[in-house]
Each structure stands twice: as C-alpha cells, then as structure tokens.
C-alpha cells in the first residue's frame, strides 16, 4: 500500500512532466510560427521588390500630375489640391532642424529621454498648423490631412515614410507668426525641447520648396451626404 502510494506520487509527477513538456513545445512552436526567422532574406527581397515598384508608380503619378497641372484652371479646385498636398509649392517660411540631444547620457539616464520622438514631431507640426502654416513637410514628406506620426521601434514613421534624425521640417507661412508660436514662453520649445536638451535650429527662408505628397487619396468608407442639422444628435447608427 505504502509503495503503491509512493509510486502514484512519482507517476503524478511524470504526468505533470509530460504535460509541461507538450505545453512548452506548443508555446515554443507558436513563437516560431510568429517569428519566421528562416524567411528573413526572402521577405527582405520581397520588400525590396515592392519598394522599387512603389518608386516606379510614384514617378508615374508625379509625371501625370505634372501634365494635369496645366489644365487646372478652377481656383477652388487649385486651392483644394494645394491643401491636400497634390502640388509642389514655393514660398517664404521656416526651416526647422530637430536633432537628438548632443548630451552624453550617464548610464543611469534613460537614453529615450535624449531622443526626438514621434510625438515631438507631431506636436511641432501641430503647432505650425495652429500658427497658420499653409504647407508643411517633414524630411521631404509632405504633411497632408491624413498624415499621422507613429513610432516604429528605432525610427519614426511620417505617414508611411521612415524618417531618421536630423529631422528637417519646412513650413510655408508667415515667418514671424510661425517663429513666435514656437518660441513663445511656455510654448513648444520651452516645453518640448529644453526639458530633453534636444537640438533645434530655426532659420527663416525667403523661398522654400515643399514637395507634393507621394500618394493619392482613396475613400472607401466615407460617403458624401447633404449637410445635417448639428442640433440633431443621436441619429448616428
């Protein structure tokens, strides 16, 4: 009886062992499935192919747009195309260069505190819009109504374009207002740049070039309707 009890104990331990073993394998194969490390070179060449394809299509798009620009005579349409970033623009404005902190971080300082993050860019561009900028580009990527800033590991995505420091922001608009909006007490520079010791230089330019956006616009969900009474709420389904 005693021996059988003890044997059962060991048997129970082995059951546990077998279960754990299978569960571990299951978890491990799950991880492997999500990280297909064998296919990295394959995926890289695929991405490369797609990138060259995108570049080709963008070039095509640009040349079509150049041709169309000649026929654009309707003023409202022109303004809308300017606002949505379809035209390359020139005009007076600011050139802002944002760099990571030059300060050598002590080992106990979180290095993240010394970097330019996507939210710095988002706040800066937002500040420029508020100050009346007419067109903004970050590292050559035109900021259009749908452009968002996001963090992708060690790089920042502006829309779908990867950008790296130094960040060059160009904005067309009233130079005095734009500059004042950034440098005012309690403003962007004081709140977002000085605490992190980031580098920023602002230069006023007489004639800045801002490139057009690369992509087009596709609306698959929104549809145009007649304007509705703003008082009527709760009619959204």
């Amino acid at each position, binding site marked *: 009886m005693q021996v059988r009890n003890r044997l059962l104990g060991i048997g129970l331990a082995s059951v546990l062992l*077998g279960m754990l073993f299978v569960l571990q394998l299951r978890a491990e194969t799950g991880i492997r499935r999500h990280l297909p490390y064998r296919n990295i070179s394959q995926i890289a060449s695929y991405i490369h192919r797609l990138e060259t394809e995108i570049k080709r299509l963008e070039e095509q798009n640009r040349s079509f747009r150049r041709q169309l620009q000649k026929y654009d005579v309707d003023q409202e349409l022109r303004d809308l195309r300017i606002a949505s970033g379809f035209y390359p623009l020139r005009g007076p404005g600011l050139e802002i260069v944002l760099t990571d902190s030059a300060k050598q971080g002590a080992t106990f300082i979180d290095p993240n505190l010394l970097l330019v993050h996507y939210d710095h860019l988002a706040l800066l561009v937002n500040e420029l819009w508020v100050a009346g900028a007419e067109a903004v580009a970050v590292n050559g990527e035109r900021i259009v109504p749908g452009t968002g800033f996001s963090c992708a590991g060690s790089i920042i995505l502006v829309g779908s374009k990867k950008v790296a420091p130094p960040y060059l922001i160009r904005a067309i608009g009233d130079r005095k207002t734009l500059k004042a909006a950034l440098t005012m007490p309690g403003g962007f520079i004081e709140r977002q740049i000085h605490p992190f010791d980031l580098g920023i230089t602002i230069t006023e330019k007489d004639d800045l070039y801002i490139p057009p956006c690369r992509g087009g616009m596709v609306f698959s969900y929104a549809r145009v309707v007649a304007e509705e009474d703003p008082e009527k709420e709760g009619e959204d389904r």
Partner: protein
Amino acid sequence: MIILVPLLGLALGMVLARLLPWEIPLVWVRYSPLVILVLLDAVVDGLRALRQKELVLAGFWVSFLTRAAGAVFLVYLGDLMGVDLFTAVAVVFSLRLFGSLSRMGRELFKKKPF
C-alpha cells in the same frame, strides 16, 4: 517494472496536454523550462529513492516545489537586475539531473546482496 510507472505517466501527461487547449502564457515561457528540468530531476531521483526505500512523498513534493520555485525566482530576480541567470540555473539543475541519473544507474545495476 518500476520504470514503467513514470513512462506511462509521461505518455498519459502528453496525451492529456494534447487534448487540453491550455497554453503557457508568453511571459512564463522563459521560466517553464526550468520547472521541466526540476521535474525531470525529481522523477529520476524519486525513482532511485523509491528503490532504496527512502522516499517520503511529502518531502518529495515539498522539495520539488521549493526547487522549482527557487529556480524560477532566481531567474526572475536576474531579469529584474538585468543579468541573465537562466543559463546559470539551467546548468546547475542539469548537473543535478545527471547526478541523479548516475545514482539511479548505480542503484539499478548494483550487485545484489545474497
């Protein structure tokens, strides 16, 4: 004959785990191999103790649990401090496992007293 019990248990556990939909949470996957290692050692050493008639079931479980918890805790502590203690702990318990295996072998093939 005694060796059949853990083998059967092992098979039963594997079949059971295949049937059950459980999954180890991703955060724990780092630590569960240690438990497996400790458990393997416990089973081998338990078998040897059983043959030598010195196995105490409560002690068997308690020592297994403390060892497993200790191993996991040590690695967790290492992760907190930014030191990879996994390998250290894995080496220690692997050595223990080989020790248990050799003692088990000696026990199995030792000369029977007449």
